[in-house]
């Protein structure tokens, strides 16, 4: 897979950018609101193709991907990212309401992290992202 994006990897490492892919607008809105409060840039995609397109165009620091989306599956997106030379190191967080162990195993086998959609969704995302960015995520005034 060759990259279709012209952006340099350096830019993506300097600017903390999160790509959120979920067909549920409310979920993306909530997470976007949280990241924006912490001054982190957010790209939002509502289907798998769009997510891939955005990732290639503007390589993100972290991708947060829903499993069940139109125009492709979130796990397929993860596979594409993992097989792209430029993007394969991108941390992937898979969020889903699905509690099937098989899904969890599949997610983990792809080197992604599995996050259950619960009331502590932000708490879980923040925990992972703080570890990735190595800075505490607190809302800045």
């Amino acid at each position, binding site marked *: 897979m060759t990259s279709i994006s012209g952006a340099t990897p350096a830019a993506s490492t300097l600017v903390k950018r999160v790509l959120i892919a979920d067909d*549920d607008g*409310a*979920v993306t809105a*909530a*997470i976007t*609101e*949280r990241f924006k*409060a912490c001054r982190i840039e957010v790209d939002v995609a509502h289907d798998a193709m769009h997510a891939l397109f955005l990732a290639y165009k503007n390589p993100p620091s972290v991708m947060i991907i829903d499993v069940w989306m139109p125009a492709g599956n979130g796990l397929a997106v993860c596979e594409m990212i993992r097989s792209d030379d430029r993007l394969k190191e991108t941390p992937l967080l898979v969020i*889903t*309401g*699905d*509690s*099937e*162990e*098989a899904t*969890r*195993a*599949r997610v*983990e*086998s*792809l080197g992604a992290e599995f996050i*259950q*959609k*619960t*009331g*502590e*969704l*932000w*708490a879980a995302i923040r925990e992972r992202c703080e570890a990735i960015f190595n800075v505490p995520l607190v*809302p800045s005034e």
Partner: protein
Amino acid sequence: MTRSHTTRTRRGKRTVVAARAQAATDPVDELALTVLPRQNMRRKLGRIVLVTILAQGVVAAVALTTLQGPWREAKRLDHGATLASLAVDQLRGQRLASYNIFAEAILERIANAPSVQFATLLDSQSQVVLQSGSEERARRLLQSAIDGRAVGETGLALAAPVDGVVVYESPLTDISGAPFRLVLGMKDLSAQRALLDGAAALFVGMIGAGLVALPIGLWRFQRWTSSLHSLHRGIRRLAMDAPLQPVTVSGEDEIAYLSIAFNEMASKLTASRNELVEANRVLEQRVAERTEDLRIANAKLERQNITLEELTETALRFTDDVAHEFRTPLAVISEFASILFDGLGGELTAKQEEYMRFISSASSDLERLVDDFLDTGKLRAGVLRVDRRATRVEDVLDRIWPMLEMRAATTQVRVERRIQPGTPRAYVDREKLGRAVLNLAVNAIKFSPPGARVVIEAARTETGAVSLSVIDEGPGIAPDEVSALFERFEQTRTGRDADAKGFGLGLNITRELVRLNLGQVEISSEIGKGSVFTITVPSDDAAVIVDSYVRSLRASHTARLGLMWIDAAQAENADADVAGRIATFAHPDDLYLPRPSGGVLAAGPTESVGGWRDRLLCEDAKRSHASGGACPRLQILATDTCTLTEARERILDGLARAPETQRRAA
């Protein structure tokens, strides 16, 4: 095929050969010939005949020996008679004139013959001229002879013989030329002759009877043996279940009667056997009918079972789908509530803040309900999985704490946690134990009056396990209601009076979640003072874990355990966490303990390790396939079984010792 009845006799061999020749045509004949000693009977008969002839010979010899005396005597007497007649011949033509001395000598010779008692010479006047032998007896005999016969002008008419007296017309004449008569008293030989005649007749009769009786006997014997033979054939046929043929034996002897009796018996036997066969056939037919009925019923049941399984599957999928559908909106509600609560949507008034708390609590309650609901379904279907590993109690509590604090804040209840020094790490599924504690704590908060405290205390028990107590200052539970507390969907009266909801399902699933962690839940409560719910789970110590495991198996009446030593096959990027990987598909009843020297020791309630091993490898293969083969495959190094009583020792031993010293996996 032909069985070789080797008899020791020469004839026996021939019999077997003959039987072999016939074997192909009639097995009954073969057996009859080999078993019935017909030839032997003939030989016996021959012996009897021989003995009879010998006996006859002996009898004849004895008779001859016995009769030899009388025979010789008779011969001698005959010889005597001959001598007498010779003497008479010598006398013929002699003249009396010269007779005197000469005649006297001849008469003496005659009288001396053995068969002659006396000899008397009479003249024509019947006067005794010469007398020899017993005169007295001669005179008496002569007198009786004279008295018995008319004495005519011819004097003595003795031409007709008197017993024992022979009168010869003597050739002698007196001077006048008149003949003399010679009267001889003969000895009586009739007894000897009769004896000899009798003996001869007996001898002849004996031989004759023997000659006549032998063929008749042989003929009869032949008939008997063939009768016996056909009777034997009949019996063999009967014994071998061959088609019945009546035994035909002619005559009216015992064998014939026996044959008739046999025929009757055989026909009755055959009749009852036929009845039996018929009854059997009817029975078999009935069995076949019933079997068919059963088969149909079974097939029906199987179809119903499949339908039920499909229904269960559908129901499970449905609840899972529902849960999935619930989770996303619930997450959105929670997220925005907390966004607002955190002031990201602008400053909130105190009132608004309080309302947001209610929204958050309600949505988190709903989320827990969804989780409990899902887990209950999974538990029922036996597909709930558990991932037990060494976990700090703080990590368990950290995870649930924000939710708990928010929940407590809505009813002005304070939550506190106390982790006693020396509390060991727990060997638990963090998420499941967390939910169990959360359920108990949320219940405690619900029942606590505003301003009360709920304390969560972690400590080490006397046995080295970890206890997590949820202590409240609520109304308490009556002792008789404690036992009913864990019943599904049941709420205590006290609880209902206190107007608290959602107690039943939560508490029930709590106990199941604790059970999955090899733990127990205990309640102590005092009306008016409060309740203490204590969860005890194993600490991260092999002995404690195994103890808890064995106890939980005892509760489920397990008798035997299977043991397996597992390792991950060496592969690049090999995942060292074999136990964690197995946990994603292992049954909750099975225990997977990491061994200090690497790999995993698995224990599980099973009669045959083989089926368990195959299932595990199959599941592993499926998972490995689902993840694109990235995971190293499991390797079973060894297997074994043990009883529940020896389980503790065996598991602990199995952890420490290398699998090579255990039984090798096939």
